[in-house]
């Protein structure tokens, strides 16, 4: 690939990204009323997407082989348990991550 071709490739990746981020704002401009169905989606989608992102983060965990996803399971329990108890975002994240690091480095 020449330098120009490389620049075009990177520009196209940028264009694809910007387009997916901007499209809803381009279609539903502030002056126009947002259709009720889209409004419904705007409210319904976020929590579904957060669920999807959690699964995305864990997509390469194999339950059948290796350590059977046990470090992930333990660390998730710590994160969720601590968060339900204290509701301190940073604390839950730090403790869960530390727990996971200790498990994969020293235990499994």
């Amino acid at each position: 690939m020449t330098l120009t071709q490389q620049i075009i490739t990177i520009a196209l990746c940028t264009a694809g990204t910007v387009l997916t981020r901007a499209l809803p704002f381009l279609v539903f401009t502030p002056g126009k009323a947002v259709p009720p169905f889209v409004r419904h989606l705007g409210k319904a989608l976020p929590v579904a997407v957060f669920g999807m992102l959690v699964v995305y983060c864990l997509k390469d965990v194999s339950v059948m082989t290796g350590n059977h996803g046990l470090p992930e399971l333990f660390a998730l329990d710590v994160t969720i348990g601590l968060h339900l108890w204290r509701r301190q975002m940073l604390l839950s994240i730090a403790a869960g991550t530390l727990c996971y690091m200790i498990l994969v480095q020293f235990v499994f």
Partner: protein
Amino acid sequence: MKLKAFKAAFPYTIPIFAGFWFLGLTYGIYMNVLGFSFVYPMMMSLVIFGGSLEFVAAQMLLSAFAPLQTLLVALLIQARHLFYGISMLDIYNNTGWKKYYLIYGMCDESFSINYTVQVPDGVDKGWFMFFVTLLNQLYWVTGSTIGGLLGSLITFNTQGLEFVMTALFVVIFLEQWLKEKQNYTALFGVLSAVVCRLIFGSSSFIIPTMVCILFLCTVFRKPIEHAGEKE
């Protein structure tokens, strides 16, 4: 006003700092090992600002020039942002000129924080979201630049640090779960993703998952809206 918003925003970005520096360094090192100068990861993180696509783009740069395929792959990998935009329409539209940067920098993490966080009284929501987005991009760009500069020179025992991103999304998911009056949509998201992951494999399940979520949210619109209005 700006300082106040910055001080409110910074703590929320600390986990992302850890995650982005780790992933950014990894990306920079990856590019370095493939033979690219640090300018590549630096510029790509600055303009593309989308982790998974940047890793794929590295492979594209090493293959034959295929512009149409490049654009198509970029759109497929980034399609989930469409959902973020639909959810942020009202929130971002009230921020003046900052709207353009907020949309440009709307990665998974910035969207998650900006959608979820209830900004304290007296803090400007627009500036708060602006600083969350800016700090996140700063972490990502500096991480990948340093990784690209140092390359494989650095060896560090950070095995498992990537879990910080999982923990972040779990906590945000949990917060949203506790806040919502209905939990159908939360379950739709998790179940669709798990089923699609099992059927389509780990590298191509996001688009099918999005289709499933969209389908379920359409079919069950009435019960979702009804449950959401209770109390």
